[in-house]
Structures are given as structure tokens and as C-alpha cells.
């Protein structure tokens, strides 16, 4: 309203132009519009309300909602099944035939499938549940290849269960697979006894130290979940103490080397008390010992 120049003032009056004053209503509306709350409500609130109302009215109908949903699904599938996202084959490295077949059987979807439908994390967890698999690495390589890198568990020992089955265990005592026949893995030693699978590492140490006896070693038996018995062929048995069994074993080996102890007709070498190693002879040996002794005394005595 800086129209204060005289000629403009003249124009106002001469032309009889309307008074520039706003009407009371216009003035009030103008003031209302300058109120911040009203202003923001009109600028943001009202359009938002109208938009929400329109969307709500449109989606009120079930058919429209279903149509929208199916359209979206279709779009999603179209996108996911583009050739760039398809997985056509699975490649398994580092697994034996049997394990690879198992992994193939575990794949939840049928190839070719969209990579969106393969949940790598779940699939990896599923594969990791196989006993023979130590670790597995999954990724989708360019070209649509599902790469499965498997590290298998190495069987370190055999375990004769209470039910009589033979299980292969790895160095940590984890089950690898079931063995149908002992002959399949003659290189591995056998352990038995209640709780033996939890002491595989001890057993492996013992076996390593018992290498001089290896040709004759048949297995180890855990007794009372605390100490080991070494079982040799000809039903010979070395009972090791709970503490420091390796020293006891070395003692036996030294004895064998010096005295040729094990090749004699000894049933049990009891090392449980290291102050007093005890030898139990077999039945036949006792019998023959008695016979011979009688004979000898006879001969000698006579």
C-alpha cells in the first residue's frame, strides 16, 4: 500500500474506484490463513486426508484389492524370473559322492529356479547338519551357478557303540558316518565302552604312543568313563591307570621290548597301580605253568 504518490491518489478519487479496504470477511479469512496452524493444516493435513480417503475408498472393494495384490505378485515374479536371476545348476566341490548326493536331495527347490527363491542361509544350515560335513560355503556365482564348497570331516577313529554298530568319528569326537564293516577301514583303531565317544582325543594320543604295539592293537575300551584298557589280539589286555596312562603304556612297551612280555601267554597286564604292575596269566598258561612246574620239580627233584 505504498500508493501514496499524488497522481495515484488522484486516480482513486477521480475514477471513483472502490475503496481498497478488504471486507470484514476477507480480512478475517486473511488473518485465519496467516495463522500457522490453519496454514499447515490446509497445506499438509488436508491433502493427506484427501489422499488417505481416496485410497481407502478405492481399496474398500475386495476385488480391487485382490487384483492389486495379484498384479503386484505377477510383477514380482516377472522380475525374479528374469534370466539374470535364474540359477540353473548346482556345483558341489569337496564332497564325496554320497555326501554330494545327499546335498542335492536337500535342495528345497527344483532347478532352474530364481535366486530369490533360494534361501542360502537356511540351505547352508541344512547342509551343515549333515554329520560328514565340517563346514560349507554357499554362493551364487555369475552365470546362474549355485556353488557349494564343502569341507568334509576326516574320520580319525572307529567307535563301537553299545548296540554293536561301528561309527566313524573325527578327531573332535564328532560322528562322521556309520561303517557297515570293520574291514572297510582297517587303518583306524576302534574304541568302545560307555562314554568313549567323548574321549576320542585321549584315545588318539594313546594310540599314537602305542605305535610299537600297532600291529597287534585291536582297540581301546573305556572303563567306567575314566580309564582305558588297551586290547591286543590273542585277548591280551593292558589296563592303564586313570592318571598318566602314557607313562604306564611306555612302561609296558619298555617291558615288552626288554622282556618280550606281550608275546608271552599273558592275559592281562594291570598297570593301574604304578608301584605294583601286575600280570595275570591266561588259563592255559596257568595250567601249563603248573604242569611244567610239577614236571620240573619232578625232574629236578628226582
Amino acid at each position, binding site marked *: 500500500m505504498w500508493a501514496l504518490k*499524488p497522481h495515484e*491518489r488522484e486516480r482513486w478519487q477521480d475514477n471513483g474506484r472502490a475503496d481498497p479496504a478488504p471486507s470484514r470477511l476477507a480480512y478475517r479469512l486473511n*488473518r485465519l490463513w*496467516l495463522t*500457522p496452524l490453519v496454514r499447515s493444516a490446509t497445506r499438509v493435513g488436508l491433502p493427506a486426508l484427501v489422499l488417505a480417503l481416496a485410497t481407502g475408498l478405492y481399496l474398500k472393494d475386495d476385488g480391487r484389492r485382490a487384483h492389486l495384490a495379484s498384479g503386484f505378485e505377477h510383477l514380482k515374479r516377472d522380475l525374479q524370473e528374469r534370466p539374470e536371476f535364474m540359477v540353473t545348476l548346482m556345483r558341489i566341490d569337496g564332497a564325496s559322492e554320497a555326501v554330494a548326493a545327499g546335498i542335492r536331495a536337500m535342495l528345497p527347490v527344483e532347478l532352474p529356479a530364481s535366486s530369490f527363491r533360494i534361501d542360502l542361509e537356511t540351505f547352508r544350515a541344512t547342509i551343515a547338519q549333515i554329520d560328514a560335513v565340517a563346514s560349507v560355503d554357499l554362493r551364487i556365482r555369475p552365470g546362474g551357478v549355485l556353488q557349494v564348497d564343502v569341507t568334509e570331516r576326516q574320520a580319525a577313529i572307529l567307535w563301537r557303540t553299545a548296540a554293536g554298530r561301528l561309527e566313524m568319528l573325527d578327531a573332535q569326537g564328532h560322528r562322521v558316518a556309520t561303517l557297515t564293516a570293520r574291514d572297510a577301514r582297517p587303518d583306524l583303531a576302534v574304541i568302545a565302552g560307555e562314554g568313549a565317544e567323548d574321549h576320542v582325543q585321549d584315545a588318539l594320543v594313546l594310540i599314537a604312543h602305542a605305535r610299537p604295539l600297532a600291529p597287534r592293537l585291536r582297540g581301546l575300551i573305556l572303563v567306567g568313563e575314566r580309564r582305558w584298557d588297551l586290547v591286543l589280539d590273542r585277548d591280551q589286555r593292558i589296563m592303564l591307570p586313570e592318571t598318566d596312562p602314557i607313562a604306564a603304556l611306555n612302561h609296558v612297551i619298555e617291558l615288552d621290548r626288554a622282556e618280550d612280555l606281550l608275546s608271552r601267554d599273558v592275559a592281562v597286564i594291570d598297570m593301574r597301580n604304578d608301584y605294583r604292575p601286575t600280570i595275570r596269566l591266561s588259563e592255559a598258561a596257568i595250567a601249563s605253568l603248573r604242569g611244567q612246574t610239577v614236571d620240573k620239580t619232578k625232574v629236578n627233584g628226582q
Partner: protein
Amino acid sequence: MTDLYQSQRAMRNMRQAAMQRGVIAILDVGTSKIACLVLKFDGPEPEREDGLGSLAGQSQFRVIGAATTRSRGVRFGEIHTMQETERAIRTAVQAAQKMAQVRVDHVIACFSGAHPRSYGLAGEVQLAEGQVSENDVARVLAACDVPDYGQGREVLHAHPVNFAVDHRTGFGDPRGHVGNRLAVDMHLLTVDTPAVQNLLYCIKRCDLEMAGLASSAYVSGLASLVEDEQELGAACIDMGGGATGVSIFIKKHMIFAESARLGGDHVTSDIAKGLQVPVPVAERIKTIHGGVHATGMDDREMIEIGGDSGDWEKDRRKISRTELIGIMRPRIEEILEEVRAILDVAGFDHLPSQQIVLTGGASQIPGLDGLAARILGHNVRLGRPLRVQGLPQAATGAAFSSSVGLCLFAAHPQDEWWDFEIPAERYPARSLRRAVRWFKDNW
């Protein structure tokens, strides 16, 4: 008295509310224009040790909206036609709001007419505690004997100008002084009640709340007198359209205000009558060619005064500038004589400083200061209002000194009577508030 006290206090509270909202409107209801400024308060700037601040302490507000409109329905600085004035106020307020892009609810207004009349009041009390407390100040203000200013008059300003404790005088703030007797000199300004009520009604019709009311003579003095003039003593002559306000300041307080019901519009109507031209044309001729000193050059300067009567002779009339000055000068002299008479009545001669400052729209006539010096005295200067932040260039002229002064008034109002608590004795005898006050004062 108490009624006025309450309404003035209500206005002060309204001003406080407006300060908290940070936006307040200034409305100068004049005879020739209505100006509206929208002020934005940014909060007080950090206090400094010496009490000074940037922009003379005016930096705490800025003008964010300004508008003027031709005034309608105002004569001699008083509202004459309510509806017209209301519409003019609406126009100005709406335009200022539009510029500021913010809604204003509180307004401080000033007007120039309504026969302002000054009274000097004196009051005296004995101090009970030997030291002046805030309560004593309120008591001494209440002890002033109010003159009989007549029916239909209302107090517009009541400034405590000077305090004296025992025989020491000249205190601005006597609190804490030790003495037995506190005296006060107060300046009271009364105006006609109907004029104030008309203005309040118009503003209320515009959905605005009053946050203050001031005399335009006072606020233009605030804006156009510089600080030492206010301190040493000066008179401010606000030559408006319909009324000429005179205010005398000393020691930073107004001690006298009065207004002459003559102004620039009378000059315009003289020209219109003398030259037989419409009033807008006369206004135009006055603003472009007007003056008060004729020289030989002015005899040769011909002014086309025009007209659209269709009569060639009449529409081609020309007058010399000397003739125009011959019409204007007697009226301006009359205005200045009137001012002289007011100053004489006020006893301006006895003031130590004889400084006179001319401001207002009509003071822009070329050569006025020379003429005024002959009639009023030697120390005459033309005053323009203080510069305030954000004021548009178009509103920095002398015509806006009362608008600017009102800004200063809004930002730093001087203490008035109603800014002090009513002493307990003034409450009605059985009032609960009286008891509460008594407790507050005594514990």
C-alpha cells in the same frame, strides 16, 4: 481512577503477552495516513556492563511488515467516521500482515488529537523504614493529589518524572536511598474519553487486542529527538495532517504535551480554495511545488494547475510559485504562531535548552526551518526519526516519526504509574487481596 488503572495494566499485560509471542503491530492513526508496522522481537540481546548496546539498544526488534494507507474518516487526529476508519485500519493491517507473512493479534496505537492536556502532580510520603523500597514508590505515586481534570477525560500517560528523597532531588530511581521523606513529581496527560473509546472500538472491530496507547506528540518526540536533546531539554513539534502536536522533553521525560488542531491538511484546503482546484490536486501541487520563501526565481516558475472541467481557459490555468507560496505561508505562520502560544503557555522559555525539533509530514515543506526559526526561536532543526532495523526506505521520512516512536515505545516503555503495584491501602477495605498484600508486604 482505579478503572483506568486496571485498563492500563491490562494493556501492559497484553504487551507482555505480545512480547512473548514476539510479534506486535504498531498503528499510527493519523489524519492523512494510517501507518501499520509489524515488529518482530528476537528477545533481548545480552546485557552489557555499561548498559549500551548495538543500534542504541534497538537491535532487539526489527520491522518485518510495513504499510500505509490513505486515512479516511479521521479529522484533527480524532476518529470522525467510525466505519471508514475501521476499513482504513483493516487495509493497513492486512497489507502489513501480508508483507510480514504473519498474523498479528496485538496492536499499540497512537493518535494526535483528542485535546491532550498536561498536569504536573506532586506527592510526598514519609518513609517508614528509613530506606526507599518499591512499595514506597508505589505509595508516593498513589499519594499524588490528582487534579480535577473534568468529566469525559481520561489519563493517557502518567510518568513519574522526578523523585526527591529529603532534600536531594533529581533521582530517576530512588529505590534503596536512605531518608525520611520521599517526594515525586509526576506528569499526567489526559485526553478526551470519547476519542479513545472510538479508537478502541475500531481496533476491536478489527479483531485486534490493544497492547498500549500513546499520544503521538509523545512518541514522535521519542523518535526524533536525539538523546542529549531529550536529556537537556527540547520541544518536538510534530506537524501532522490534521493536528500539530507539541511535546517538551527534559531529563528523558516528557514534561508537557499539547496539540494544536491545525495541520498540513489546512494548507491543502487553502490551496484548493484559493486556486479552485480539487483537494487531491492541491495536495499534489503542495508536495511538489510548495514552499514558504518566495524569491525572484519563483515569479518565473509557472505551475500548471490543470483541471478537467472541459473549459479550455480553466484547464490551462497557470500560477507562479510565488502565488502558491503566498497562499501557503500565512497558514503555516498561523500553525507556528499557535505552536508558539502553546510553548509560551508551557513555559518553554524557562527551560535551559531552547532546542526545537520539527518533524511530521508537514515539516517537509522547503524552507520551513527558516520560517520556524523566526517565529519559534533560533534553535530549530528538522528532525527525522531514528533508524530502526528493517524499516523500509519509504517509511524513514519525517512523516513516520510517530510510527517509529511507537516502535521504541513498544520496545522500551517508560515507567508509568500503573507499572507499580497498587499499595494495599488503595484496595477496598474488605478485599481478600488486601489481606494477601498485607502479608506480602510484611513478611
